[in-house]
């Protein structure tokens, strides 16, 4: 595939219809909570965007993120958009190895300095760098060097975003997330570095590189294509929450968007995995569901092309897109259990809420009645102001 091809041309060459493409743009716009009038803007921008160079680095990870993002049962537009980026370096997917692979990375950096997107999956061992090295270069050096020329960094998966499983207690490798590493070691010059880095080393500011965290173990594929689409359309990174996650996808908790939420509200819970409640599809809160404290798009976007998501399959949410989810104290332990009789508490709460509502309602009604009483007839002589 030619590097000069635009995304529009590349998609067309792969047999994606204009209609399919616009559907993707509309879905992206609605997922990112953009107004419908932005759809043509997204379409126009993507159409014309030249394929961005992407360098993908895998550190302490299990390749699950790459699996998630590359797996699709039939070619979807998301998949193809992903294919149409110029993926210039990716350990798992590239054919080259050893010195040739590193040469490809350096060539991509040289050609696109300041413009390429760096995607990272996996955390970085800082305590003992020996746990993970590539071509004899420590993960930290490779990240510091490659981050220097990136336009933006996308930390894919909970390991890159928050440290993930390698960072779990007792964290034997001294693993750090990309954001933490760049914060703590951003001033450091990498011990081993290439000629490309040396040539540009005067304008390096990795501490302030924009970082988009796309956590999840693994994250939902459409989230990363959505972020890429946003970057290509607006040239900026999307609005992020305090953990660096795009608000459009991580703005709401699983709980708030869960189809089992009505059972929670009614106090109907599955107590074990094979009781009547579980069979009836009641709330999995007491079985340790972390939905209330987990922010992700699973409940709306779902997995495997919108087929299902863990709670729909009857398993509580593990909270994999939250920091340190591995150390949360047991996946099957409820976040908290009430010591009081929950239904009596609910009755009191409803009573108090209703009383407040009635009081406010009465105030409002009184105000409205006053307004109605104060009504002065409007006739044709009252339509203009004096003077």
């Amino acid at each position: 595939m030619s590097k000069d091809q635009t995304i529009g041309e590349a998609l067309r060459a792969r047999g994606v219809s204009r209609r399919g493409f616009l559907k993707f743009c509309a879905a992206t716009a609605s997922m990112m909570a953009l107004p419908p009038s932005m759809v043509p803007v997204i379409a126009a921008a993507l159409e014309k965007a030249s394929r961005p160079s992407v360098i993908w680095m895998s550190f302490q990870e299990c390749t699950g993120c790459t699996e998630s993002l590359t797996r699709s049962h039939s070619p979807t537009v998301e998949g193809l958009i992903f294919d149409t980026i110029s993926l210039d370096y990716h350990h798992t997917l590239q054919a080259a190895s050893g010195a040739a692979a590193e040469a490809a990375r350096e060539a991509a950096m040289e050609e696109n300095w300041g413009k390429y997107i760096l995607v990272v999956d996996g955390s970085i061992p800082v305590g003992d760098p020996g746990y993970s090295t590539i071509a004899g270069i420590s993960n930290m050096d490779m990240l510091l060097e490659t981050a220097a020329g990136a336009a933006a960094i996308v930390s894919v998966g909970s390991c890159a975003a928050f440290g993930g499983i390698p960072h779990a207690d007792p964290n034997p490798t001294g693993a750090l997330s990309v954001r933490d590493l760049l914060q703590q070691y951003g001033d450091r010059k990498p011990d081993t570095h290439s000629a490309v880095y040396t040539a540009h080393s005067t304008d390096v500011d990795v501490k302030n590189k924009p970082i988009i965290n796309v956590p999840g173990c693994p994250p939902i594929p459409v989230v990363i294509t959505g972020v890429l689409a946003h970057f290509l359309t607006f040239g900026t990174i999307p609005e992020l929450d305090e953990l660096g996650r795009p608000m459009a996808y991580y703005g709401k908790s699983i709980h708030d968007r869960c189809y089992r939420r009505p059972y929670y509200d009614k106090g109907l819970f599955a107590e074990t995995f094979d009781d009547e409640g579980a069979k009836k599809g009641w709330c999995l809160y007491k079985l340790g569901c972390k939905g209330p404290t987990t922010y992700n798009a699973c409940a709306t976007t779902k997995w495997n092309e919108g087929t299902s998501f863990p709670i729909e399959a009857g398993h509580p949410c593990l909270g994999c897109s939250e920091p340190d989810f591995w150390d949360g104290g047991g996946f099957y332990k409820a976040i908290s259990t009430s010591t009081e009789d929950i239904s009596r508490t609910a009755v009191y709460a409803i009573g108090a809420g209703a009383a407040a509502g009635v009081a406010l309602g009465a105030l409002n009604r009184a105000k409205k009645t006053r307004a109605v009483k104060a009504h002065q007839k409007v006739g044709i002589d009252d339509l203009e102001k004096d003077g």
Partner: protein
Amino acid sequence: MSASLQRGIDAFKEQIDAPVAAFFSSCVRCGLCADACLFYTETGCPTRTPIHKLEPLRRVWQQEYTFWGRYAKAFGLSKPVTDEELEKWETLVYDSCTMCGRCSMVCPVGNDITYMIRKMREGMAASGHAPEGLIGATKRAVTIGSPMGVKLPALQAQIRHAEKDIGLEIPVDVEGADYMLLLSSMEIMNFPEFIGAVAKIFNKAGVSWTISSEAFEATNSGIQIGVSEIAAELVQRIVDAADKLKVKNVISPECGHAYMAIRWEGPNLVGKPYNFKVVHILELLDDLRKQGRLKTTGKESQRLTYHDPCQISRRGGVVEQPRNLIDMIADDFVEMPDSGTMNWCCGAGGGVSSNERADDLRLKVFRRKQAQLDAVKPDALVSACSNCRIHLEEGLEENGMDITVLSLTETLAEHLAED
């Protein structure tokens, strides 16, 4: 007494009811209503997003009727609505909205935005922020009996002309008739052929009908400007005349908002049920067709399409009837894209046509109709609203489009079977 900001705010407070409160609290600010509004799509101006036109009303709701709004108001955290603000909103609420109801159709949470615009106009009028043109029309409607200043002698003259043309007597003030026909000033002044057309059809079909000399005006400026008392007074005139003549039905003519006023708002305005039924002329004609009392001969060879007047189709539910009727006389009928309940407004309803200030804007938004017409390229455009008709003719001429605008009733009368 004169209009004042305080009276406007009081009217807002009075108008805010449970649906309004529910609508404002449910709005998710998705902006879908923008793309449903031709004043937004044809100008690209974000202030013309339908829900934004309600901003002052929303603020009054929030400050007066919500907990946090009261709190914010008490501590000076939210600004009260000002006269300057209402002045700015005047062009949004009156010039840039025909109350066509398309925004209410697309709202994903079911907010009836049009319902709220109607209510907001009550406060706008009470605060002295109604457009001059509409104030003039309203004054004429109350004092003379018609927004265009048409008096009884003018109607009588048109009736005489029609009688001469068709050779039939047109019944006036006939007690005990089944139907009492209302007319819009525009029909009387611009399209008097309508009267003759109805007379011909009714004569053939054996309909017992009359026109009242005391209440013949169908339009209701009180609703357009947003003053319920005036609207009620205008409806009451019709109710009184219908009761006096003891008619069983009142016919709303080819006029969009007249139908909405007399059929839907009327009983609520006067506060009691009517002693008669209200039908739209197209409903009656379609009934006559079903009963075999309306027969036509010959077909139009030209390509026809139908412009659904918003208040008759979308807000009135009279969608099938015009199509059944056109089917009788058309060989080549095509539907425009979005026809039926999602049809685009002509751009001149809801009082916009009485507001000279909005003239340029209404011609600008006509581009939407132009695009719809370009998609099907008809020879003639049939409609059932005189106000649409005048504006459509103007828009077509302005854009050099060679399309004839026809009244459905008049076209049917031309094809009336001799026997």
